[in-house]
Each structure stands twice: as structure tokens, then as C-alpha cells.
């Protein structure tokens, strides 16, 4: 077995073992982190591997969450059908944004994606009759089930989150190890040179953004159903910044960086907020230290200095 695949399977196995070892508080947190890591993986595909610095990914996460949530809440769709719709909604939103935003680059791309995300947030506010605006809405416990699987129970929620995480992680590994994955990296490294080898940058980046949107949509849909809440805070600007921070912290362009970044940031906020209401200042200092001493993120440094084969 290839060592990179073995490493990823070991991480998944480790998370499976943790499900029986962790106390309830951390058990729930870990399920939450696994879903956020799926979101971060989606961001990593766009930013870490393709070089698309988006500030609008909350729109894709929110598209998945609201598509699934509204179909269940207003249309009485079963979760088993509404969840894949959330995934598709995330991908479709990303492609729609990409068709316009990818005509720009650099700072302009950041601003355009930010504006799209803000438009998504305002849509949620505008259609308050359906979305219940800032307040959001809860999904009925009875509806949060796939067949016999009760997604509101801790054990099932953890198991389903782990399955989604495992599929996303192995999918990401397969993607970056594929020929298209090499082209994504080539595009990130030198778009002009890639074009001179016959690649259409717009097409490559649109596909990458679409896949990124699928990940984000899947994470948003699953998060809404498993934790029973759909709210506007998940479409707000802050939720576009978070995956960027997770990926930067863990290591952009590394497959396990998003998980590591999400874990560290989640617990950094969790612990710091126990000591001070200015916990975001602590996060800011941590990020400054990171940028100064490990600009490639933690796993980026590990790959550079210790484990060259780390994908």
C-alpha cells in the first residue's frame, strides 16, 4: 500500500477509535470539526492547490445548508434526498460564481467573491419569510434521519460525520494525486506557463472551484442536518474567512492541513474564550506568529523539512 494512502487511512482509523474514547463534550466537538474540515478541504482545493484566494466560500457552504434545510423544512423532503441536493447546490453556486469571478484574478477575484457572498447573506435576510433571517430555523428532530439512522443522536452523528469526512479526505487525496490535480498545482504555480502547455486556465479553475463548491455544499448540508440548525451566521463574511485561516494554519496545499487547522483553531477559540472575551485577539496573535515562523502552515513546514512525500 502506498504510504500516503496508509497515512490517510490511519488518520481515519484514529478518528474512529476516538469515537469510543472521547467524553461527550469532545465527542460532539470532533463530529463538528470533521464537518468543518470537509468545508476546509473544499477551500483547500480552490486555494491551496489551485491558488484561488476566495473570500466567498460561505456562500457555497450556505447554499448547501439552506438548500437542504429549506427542502426539509418547507418541502418536507426526507433528509436522504435533501442532503445530496445541498451538495449539488454548493457546486452549482460555485460554478455560477466562478463563471463571472474567474474573469478576474488576484485582489479583484477576492473582492468579487466577497461581494457574491455578501449578496447571498442579503438574500437570506431579504427572504426572511422563508429563512427566518438572522434568527434562522431549527430542523425537527424527527426529520433528521436517514432511514433507521437518527442523525441527531451523538453516536450516529459522529459515525456519519466520520464517513463523510473519510470520503472527502480520500477523494481529496485521489484528486491531488490525479493528473488533474497536477494541472491544478501547475495553474497555481504559473498560469501563463500552463496556458503555453495547452491548458485553458478558466476551464481548469472553474472545475476546481466547482469541486470546491461540492465539498462546501456537502459540509453545509450535513452540518445543518446533523446539528439541527440553519442560520444566517453560516453565510456571513466571517464564515468565508474561517476556512482560509484553517487552511493557512494547517498547511495550504496539504491534504491533512485542513483537518489540523480546523482542530487547532476550534480548540484555540474554545480554550481562549474560556479565559477572555477578547479571544479573537489571541487568534490574531497566533496567526501572526504562524505567518512569521511558518508561512506555509504547520504541515507545509513538516513537508518542507521532514516528510517530503506528504501530499
Amino acid at each position, binding site marked *: 500500500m502506498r504510504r500516503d494512502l496508509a497515512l490517510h487511512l490511519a488518520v481515519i482509523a484514529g478518528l474512529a477509535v476516538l469515537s469510543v474514547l472521547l467524553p461527550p463534550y469532545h465527542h460532539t466537538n470532533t463530529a463538528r470539526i470533521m464537518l468543518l474540515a470537509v468545508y476546509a478541504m473544499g477551500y483547500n482545493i480552490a486555494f491551496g492547490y489551485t491558488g484561488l484566494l476566495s473570500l466567498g466560500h460561505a456562500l457555497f457552504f450556505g447554499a448547501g445548508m439552506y438548500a437542504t434545510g429549506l427542502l426539509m423544512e418547507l418541502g418536507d423532503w426526507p433528509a436522504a434526498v435533501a442532503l445530496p441536493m445541498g451538495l449539488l447546490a454548493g457546486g452549482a453556486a460555485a460554478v455560477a460564481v466562478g463563471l463571472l469571478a474567474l474573469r478576474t484574478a488576484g485582489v479583484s477575484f477576492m473582492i468579487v467573491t466577497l461581494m457574491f457572498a455578501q449578496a447571498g447573506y442579503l438574500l437570506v435576510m431579504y427572504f426572511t419569510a422563508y429563512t427566518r433571517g438572522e434568527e434562522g430555523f431549527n430542523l425537527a428532530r424527527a426529520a433528521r434521519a436517514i432511514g433507521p439512522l437518527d442523525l441527531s443522536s451523538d453516536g450516529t452523528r459522529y459515525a456519519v460525520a466520520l464517513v463523510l469526512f473519510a470520503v472527502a479526505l480520500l477523494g481529496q487525496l485521489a484528486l491531488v494525486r490525479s493528473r488533474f490535480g*497536477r494541472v491544478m498545482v501547475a495553474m497555481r*504555480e504559473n498560469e501563463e506557463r500552463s*496556458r*503555453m502547455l*495547452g491548458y485553458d486556465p478558466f476551464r481548469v479553475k472553474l472545475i476546481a472551484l466547482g469541486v470546491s463548491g461540492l465539498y462546501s455544499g456537502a459540509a453545509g448540508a450535513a452540518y445543518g442536518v446533523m446539528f439541527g440548525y440553519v442560520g444566517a451566521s453560516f453565510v456571513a463574511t466571517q464564515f468565508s474567512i474561517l476556512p482560509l485561516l484553517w487552511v493557512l494554519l494547517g498547511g495550504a*496545499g496539504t491534504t491533512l492541513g485542513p483537518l489540523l487547522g480546523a482542530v487547532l483553531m476550534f480548540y484555540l477559540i474554545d480554550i481562549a474564550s474560556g479565559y477572555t472575551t477578547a479571544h479573537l485577539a489571541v487568534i490574531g496573535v497566533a496567526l501572526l506568529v504562524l505567518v512569521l515562523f511558518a508561512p506555509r502552515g504547520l504541515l507545509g513546514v513538516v513537508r518542507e523539512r521532514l516528510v517530503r512525500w506528504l501530499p
Partner: protein
Amino acid sequence: MLRLEGIDGGYGAVQVLRGLTFAAAAGQVTCVMGRNGAGKTTMLRAIMGQVRVTAGRILLDGQPIQQLPAHEVPRHGIGYVPQGRRLFGPLSVAENIEVGLMTRHKGAATRERVLDLFPRLRERLDQRSSTLSGGEQQMLAIARALCLEPSVLLLDEPTEGLQPSMIALIRDTVLSLKAMGVAVVLVEQRVDAVLSVADRVAFVTGGTVAETCDASTLTPHSAQFARYVGV
């Protein structure tokens, strides 16, 4: 056959190429010489669709290509190795080659042919390309362009900054490509390098080809070198 007829073009409002006419034939090495700023690199970039052409035609085997999107030009069989190599640093040698193979759907046979030209790269397939020496990086840049199996190969100062053994290796590669029937367009500043491989030499000045000579009529002391290159 690649042919440029009366090309005008440049960057935004700055016109660099002024009625440039140029031809490169299959199985020949056509060198392009001129002072810095004469328009040599701009000419190559115009062929590749990277510079806006405002007048004239670029013909590949009689078909106009100047209207093609830039990413379509390599798919028609024109390879380009720009100045400065520009590899995909984090990718290994094998991965850089793989990226080169994909757009024209070339496979293992092409890969083997390319690696036969550069045995040193075969020994370093798993090495990250950013860690190669300058000469090896240039080999890889050329190898990657050859993965397209181009009928025309544009090389922009490929020996710049290389040690003599690497320069000789690149010269041998150019001659091998010529023998394979590739039309090689080589931008080069060094007279000895030009005279060792060229069939024809085009002298560029002020954005146009001022003179084209058979290489056999030139010596290191020919007046054209002093007039157009300043050596």
C-alpha cells in the same frame, strides 16, 4: 512551416512589432538574433498568442492561427520554452512531464522518447523540479515542451547562464530535433552557439526582421553580428 507576414503587435498602447515577416521551415534551425528590446521575445509571444497582434497573419502549415486563444496554440503543435524556464517547482520531474503530456493526449511512448533525449532527467524522475540544477531545469523545460510532440519548437535563450557542458547538451538536443523534422526557432545572443546549429539566421531590429541569411554564409566576423547584435 511557420510563417509570420507583416505582423504588428505589442503590449497595450506600446507597439513593439512593426510589419515583422519571418519563416521557419521543418527540419531546420532558424536562429533569431538582435539587441535587447529588438522584439525577439515579443515575436515568440505573439506566435503563442500572448501578445495582441493588430495586423498581419501568423500561418502554421498555411492555416492562420493568430486568432486562436493562447491555450489553443500549443494544441496545434507549437511548443514554447520561455526565457527563465518557469517550471512548476513543487512538482517532481515526472509530474512536470506528465502535465506536458496531457493536453495533446500523449502517452508512455512520447514520455519515453522525451526521456531518451534527456537521460539525466530519467535518473531524477522523483526529484522536486525546484531542486534541479540550472541546466537540468532547462532540460526539463524543453522536455516538457516536447511532450506536446510539436512540429514547431520556440526556444528563448535556452543556454543563458548555463555551464559549457550543459550548453553542448542543449545544442545536441536542438540538432536531434532538427533531424526529427521539427522546425526549431532559437532566440540566441551568442554567435558561436548560433553558428553551431543554425540553418538560417534572422536579424531583428526595431520590431522587424531586417535581414535573413543562410548560416553557411556567416562567420563569427560577419558584419551582421556587429550591426544587429553589437558583438
